[in-house]
């Protein structure tokens, strides 16, 4: 492939990712007493066995949900910074429903629990959209603040009224086994949610680029004045994208519970919301690119984790590496210089 023929944004994404990898190697080299070992765990760890590979895919699935959530909001020109809280709320709601009711069948049970998670996320984000529509409250700030409050509330629910007192963890009891999603790859967490996430990506693509409402939404995001002038009810497009965005975050949370954790643990979905932003940014807010973007992100994430477990890489350092990657990717989003010909 001719490098010059690739679009500028693709070029800079590749540049960002390769410089991230390069910096990671340098950071690992200076921080580890046995750099070769750390580097090899970092790069090949996620592929070393089915367990690691499956877990990476599972993580990618959750990141796809989160990345889609962010992309749909970004495309509509609204900013949902409350992903963290919405994921956590979806997850906590899923746990509470699961342990509070007896579900007659596997299918109805799973559908109910997931739906509750989605609705929780959607309502919380939708609130910020509603405030924006009604009183022009900045949704970026309100979603962030609401999310901050929700996190504390969920922490409280998990570590107090619903705490499993026989456990040393700040966690709830296990959810009934009937609700567990089938796991595919040996003992890894890979489950149905990854495949659902892939299907939802295509649905999101159709929504954004092939549906009338997606057209309205994107136009509102690109030029709200223009959409308004064309008679599109633009105010609606503060709320709809927020509902969908929050719903997808909520889905990430409830799928994490049924597919992976099987219980509520304090702070267990932490990071998913923020990482969704990174995934969306790498993907250029295009649902079709969210899948590879989430895979790359999950791979880097698994790599740092495995390098930390198997070598002398410290927890702080593994986070530093992730931060570097995040930073480089975010920078590239804002560094694409546009040329605007007139006349």
């Amino acid at each position, binding site marked *: 492939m001719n490098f010059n023929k690739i679009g500028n944004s693709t070029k800079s994404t590749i540049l960002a990712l390769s410089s991230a990898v390069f910096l990671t190697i340098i950071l690992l080299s200076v921080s580890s007493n046995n750099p070769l070992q750390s580097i090899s765990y970092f790069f090949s760890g996620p592929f070393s066995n089915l367990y690691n590979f499956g877990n990476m895919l599972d993580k990618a699935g959750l990141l796809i949900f989160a990345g889609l959530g962010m992309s749909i909001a970004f495309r509509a020109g609204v900013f949902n910074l409350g992903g963290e809280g919405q994921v956590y709320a979806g997850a906590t709601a899923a746990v509470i429903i699961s342990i509070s009711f007896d579900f007659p069948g596997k299918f109805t049970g799973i559908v109910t629990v997931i739906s509750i998670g989605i609705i929780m996320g959607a309502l919380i984000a939708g609130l910020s959209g509603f405030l924006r529509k009604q009183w022009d409250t900045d949704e970026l700030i309100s979603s962030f603040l609401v999310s901050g409050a929700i996190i504390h509330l969920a922490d409280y629910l998990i570590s107090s009224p619903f705490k499993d007192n026989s456990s040393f963890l700040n966690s709830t009891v296990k959810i009934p086994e009937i609700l567990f999603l089938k796991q595919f790859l040996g003992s890894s967490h890979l489950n149905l949610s990854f495949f659902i996430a892939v299907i939802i990506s295509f649905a999101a693509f159709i929504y954004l680029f092939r549906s*009338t409402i997606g057209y309205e939404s994107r136009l509102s995001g690109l030029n709200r004045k*223009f959409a308004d*002038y064309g008679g599109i*009810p633009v105010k609606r497009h503060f709320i709809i994208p927020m509902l969908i965005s929050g719903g997808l975050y909520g889905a990430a949370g409830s799928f994490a519970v049924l597919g992976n954790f099987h219980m509520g643990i304090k702070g267990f979905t932490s990071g998913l919301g923020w990482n969704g932003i990174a995934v969306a940014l790498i993907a250029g807010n295009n649902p079709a690119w969210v899948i590879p973007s989430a895979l790359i992100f999950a791979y880097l994430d698994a790599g740092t984790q495995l390098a930390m477990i198997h070598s002398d890489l410290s927890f702080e350092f593994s986070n530093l590496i992730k931060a570097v990657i995040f930073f480089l990717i975010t920078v590239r989003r804002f560094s694409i210089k546009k040329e605007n010909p007139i006349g």
Partner: protein
Amino acid sequence: MSRILLNMQNITKIFRENSLKAVDSANLTVAPGEIHSIVGENGAGKSTLMHILAGELTPNTGSIQFSNRIVNFKAPLDALKEGIAMLHQNLKLIPELTVLENIILGIEPASKTGLLNKKEAYNRIENLYNEFEIYVDPEKTIKTLTADEKQKTALLSILYHDIKLLILDEPTTFFSEITTDSIHKLIKKLKAQGKSIIIITHKLKEAIAISDKITVMRSGKTVANINSSKIDIKQLSSLLLGKETLPEVKYKTISPGEILLEAKNLTFKKGNTEYLKLDFKVRKNEILVVTGIRGNGLETLEQILSGSVNQTEGEILYKNNILETNKYNLRRIGAGYIPSDRINTGASIKSTISENIILLKYKLLSKWGVLNSKKIKSFSTKLINEYSIKGFGNQKVATLSGGNIQRVMIAREMEDEPELFIFADPSRGLDIASKRFIYEKIHKLKNNGSGVLVISSDIEEAIQIADRLLILYKGKEAASLENKNIDRSYIGKLMLGLGE
């Protein structure tokens, strides 16, 4: 030997998006103290060439020599450091900052302690005021300024720098009537100081009247470089079009039909100031042009009709029913409307041509909420051909020239032959051929039974297309005339409130 300040040689610029040569081996030389006009049709490459000179675009090939040195601008600041500055159509001001802060942005004078030396800045602005008679209160925030004051601020922020060459982009089109005069004065003063001025314009009369030299551009090429004393309008316009000028078209008049749109005592008042108080009727088979100098109610009328403000008194009737003006109702009655704010309201320049063109039709081009790509493609291809838009469906509107962006809007708004059509400043910033195209479309619409309301501050345009003229002065009707044997200077007087 004649002295040369600027020498641009063999400049070519190809835009990646459409791989079109916007500028094609263009040459330009400017002497110190010279006023140099660049004329050409829309999309001829005038603005692109000047954006290259101002460091906003980098050329693919060619060299620029300035003050006897080869220069290579990577950014506008590089050009500014050499003394080249450009005044833009869309002013680049920061709305939250004050006039002073905007003017000194980037070269804030520092005092000995390293803090901002406001006094120094004030003095320099004061000097500029004395020198050029352009003044805006430096303490005011940009947000609170009138359009006129904003333009002056933009001008001041350029003059504040020590410039050798000033580039003006369509100065008398995009800067209101009030400043046209001061712009001409300014140009002469700068010339007297030995500074050079390049004016991008499509007004040939103005180019001949004001400049020393004229460069003509056609499809990206510089086709002629002439002394303005040695050419007349006819010769110049044939150079511009590459052929003899098209003959004037006589548009046929038909007797108007029933009343479509009626404004009764349409009033907009804020505090004690009355911005508008007006009655008018638009009939079928009729073009009504509401004209006047900007700031005399034209903008307010457009705002009320488009629903961005509500009238404080009076009403608008559409086919004898009261019409609450807002965007949805205007679209509901199927009216076509092209706003004067083309770039921000009339188009979504970051979207594609098709996405722009289907704005009023996307629901009809879909089924069960899913857009039909095939239908959309054939719909936009049809309109692109019918309205001779130079572009393809998936091309971003931002890559089109002004004339083509305009065609995209006209295609969208006229495609349905709406009964009522509202058009603000139809031909502003357009060249002869595009103007002709638009006037023909408007007339076709009228002949097919529509009523057209044009809001325009351009007298020539008003006289050329109107069946009836409504002249506004200070928000009120100064006169309402049939467009028959009208004396241009009489209308000019009415616009200035000197009638009777």
